[in-house]
């Protein structure tokens, strides 16, 4: 006895032939695709997008902060002409670290590899912006009286440097987009995108009358 073919039992058999037995798999494949892409988008992509890099020296901000008089500006200072020095150059470090002051292996590494060889430390800068972005520290810190922490977070309290996560496409740090892949933030320093600049400028009621909103305002920051 032949088993009746399933399609014979259903009406409209001529059309049903193709659909039969595929209804389940079609949904299954849809779900497979969905789950797969969710995994790719949420797990694989972030993992692949960023490479992990270690800083050349594990610098202890907290320790140094306790030793200097002038807070962040002791090392990250403004030059006489108002420009910002950014990450200290070797010459500044040498003022205290001509010889190792402790047995700390990181300090010894620093003195041996950089001070003695007169090589600049290739620090990886978490807040480095693309070259098309012009940012004046003087305008924000000197004129706007902003705190370093507002944008940079409590770096001064950190005892070691976190790994530098470099975006493989852009070459910039993950800290610009923020750790959260959706770009959500809890603190003002979690992200450093243009929207974050705009948010603050708007909050501070800077939108009207500030140079950024005038004609050619684009070129205030994008030179």
């Amino acid at each position, binding site marked *: 006895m032949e088993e009746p073919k399933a399609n014979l039992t259903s009406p409209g058999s001529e059309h049903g032939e193709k659909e039969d037995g595929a209804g389940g*798999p079609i949904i299954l494949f849809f779900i497979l695709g969905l*789950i797969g*892409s*969710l995994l790719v988008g949420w797990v694989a992509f972030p993992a692949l997008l960023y490479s992990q890099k270690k800083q050349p020296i594990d610098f202890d901000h907290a320790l140094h902060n306790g030793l200097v008089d002038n807070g962040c500006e002791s090392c990250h200072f403004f030059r006489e002409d108002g420009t910002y020095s950014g990450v200290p150059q070797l010459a500044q470090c040498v003022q205290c670290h001509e010889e190792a002051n402790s047995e700390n292996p990181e300090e010894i590494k620093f003195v041996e590899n950089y001070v003695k060889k007169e090589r600049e430390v290739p620090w990886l800068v978490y807040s480095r912006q693309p070259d098309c972005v012009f940012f004046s520290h003087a305008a924000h810190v000197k004129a706007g009286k902003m705190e370093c922490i507002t944008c940079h977070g409590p770096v001064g309290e950190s005892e070691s440097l976190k790994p530098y996560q470099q*975006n493989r496409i*852009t*070459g910039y740090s993950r800290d610009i987009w923020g750790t959260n892949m959706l770009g959500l933030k809890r603190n003002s320093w979690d992200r450093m995108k243009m929207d974050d600049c705009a948010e603050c400028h708007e909050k501070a009621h800077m939108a009207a009358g500030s140079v950024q909103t005038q004609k050619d305002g684009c070129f205030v920051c994008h030179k």
Partner: protein
Amino acid sequence: MKIDRRSFLSFVIGGAAGTALTPLPWKLTDDLSIWSQNWPWTPVPPKGETSYVTSTCTLCPGGCGISVRKVDERVVKIEGLKGHPVNDGGVCILGASGTQMLYGHTRVQAPLKKVDGAWRTITWDQAISEIASTLKELRGKGRPQSVAWVSDTDRGTTAELCRRFLTVYGSPNFIRTPSMQDAYEMALYLTQGNRAMAGFDVGQATYVLSFGSGLVEGWGSPPYMFRAKGAMQAKGGRLSQVDARLSKTAAKADQWLPVKPGTDGVLALGLIHVILKEGLYRKDFVADKAGGLDSLRNLAGDAYAPEAVSKATGLEAKTIVDLAKAFAGAKKPLAICGRGAGRVPGNVQEYLAVHFLNALVGSINTPGGVIAVPEPDYIRWPEPEMDAVASKGMQQPRVDGAGTKSFPVTRYLLNRLPETLAAGSTAPVQVLFVSSANPAYSLVDTQSVVKAFEKIPLIVSFSSYMDETAAMAHYVLPSPIYLERFEDVPVALGFPRPIIGLTKPVVKPLFNTQPTGDVVIRLAKAVGGTVAGAFKWESYEACLKQTLGNTWEPLKKNGYQVDAKFAPGPFETQSKKFEFTNADIAQLPAYAARKAPGDETSYPLTLVPYDSMRLTAGAIGSPPFLVKSLEATVLSKNDVRVEVNPATAKEIGLADGADAVLSTPKGNAKVKVYLFDGIMPGLVGMVRGLGHTAYDRFLAGKGVNTNDLMGSVEDPGTGLEAVWGIRAKLAKA
């Protein structure tokens, strides 16, 4: 379970839906846009500390102050120096391109010697000892006068060291490259007795009558003239531009007077005629401070009545009369000449006629007038001790004929050198030194120049770049460029007050170079005897410091020193007056407008070169910034476009952009046509500064060097180069 097309599509749709729910597409879009806006292979100057160094630009004789912006030890931008009396913050396109002159790849990086046609790097010691031994040998043979030196300036310590070297060595042949300075200096000397540079107080004038002078095209000190012309017009002053083509200056003038080319002098004399006839001249100046007016009446006699001048120049007689009245009636009128950027001296009698116009209206040594700026006098070295060879050599006539019986008042005649060299069987010049000059490119009739120079057994170039003259030299002893060395710059062409600028080493010399001053001192020491005795300095820098004395420190600090209380000195003629005539002037042959050389039937058109601010045509080759800025109407790919009036083009059957062959008695060139209503029918306008064979792919092989097509025209009586155009023919290619 069967995987068919449907399940695959389902998978893809599921994947797409899922992807949209992840940050992937949004983040990727953002990252890709950042990446594409910051191509990692685009060179970006490294970040660092910004600093500014105040210095002086020497890319032209404009004497502008510059403020050089550096990031750490790298020059990134050159700006005009604010508050500088010459340019007050202004900078021309060439000045701003100085970074390319510094870091460009046509720099000569070490002393070179040509061995079997190829360059070989040698040491400075070898170069100096080899050249010195040739010099000693020539001296031994009693022919020191066969050494000549070509330089683009005769002012400042470097030029004076070169001249001093020649003097104690025994040669009178220090030659400055030709420019309108020659003719203006001569006009001042002949009429006022002053050995002085001409300064023009354009800014304070109320009416400027320019005989073809490109006030915005490189005439005088470019940024100074831009500012002064702008200031003059802003205060209600007027500019009338006499020009055969609608130059940029003519376009910016209040009145454009298109005259037939080469008839500027006729027009000037015509204006003198009207001013004298109608008694429009300033009687106070002419009666008290000038002499020889009768002779001027003779000079500008009936032959220069408005109708005759109208016929010669193409202007209407009424226009000429009105122009004379407007000029003489202005509060502070000023007449200037020197065509375009003043790169060719011209006919001295035209300069005299224009200078007479200024004298008739009293605009001599007054605010808004022509100022005789005395030559710098701070170089006071002890007279060198001369031996017998040197004294005898110095008594020989100059190889270029300047100062001889034929050209008694002329100081330099580089344009005559090729002919002199070609004439004899043994070259009268055995050694030629060339510092900051490129005569094999910049002299009229380059073919003859190159041919003549080939007869010189030893050519030594001090160029920082492998230019045309350096390429044909036997040694190149590269000098550091102005951003790498100290040097005094006692000239700002056309600036109405004496000024000294100082160039400073903004960066350490990039290559194995030595300042020409140092090489001269070392050469002198190697030659020995009284030659060495005249150079007691240890180095050029020591010489410069000692020469400047108390001026050194303020100069180093400010970058320049200007004499604020300057007042022009008295006339130094025999009569102590401005002389419309005297023995020297009377000796000049009668004035005649010079025709363009060539046969009019074979060459129905006339080629007139013009100058552009976007090209340089002297000692310096245009850096890429300049060439890239050229309009498509000037350079089309590698072809120069020549300006032709549409009427003329129609006769020949040439359309806009058509390929054509331009022929002159001196040669042929491939060009493209640019139909331009602003040029007179019958003329062909071509820009100066292209057609280099040396330098790099950004400059070489682009367009045509106008000097290749031009023939030399000697101004009788002075010997100066007076060519303004040449007969030409344009045919379809």
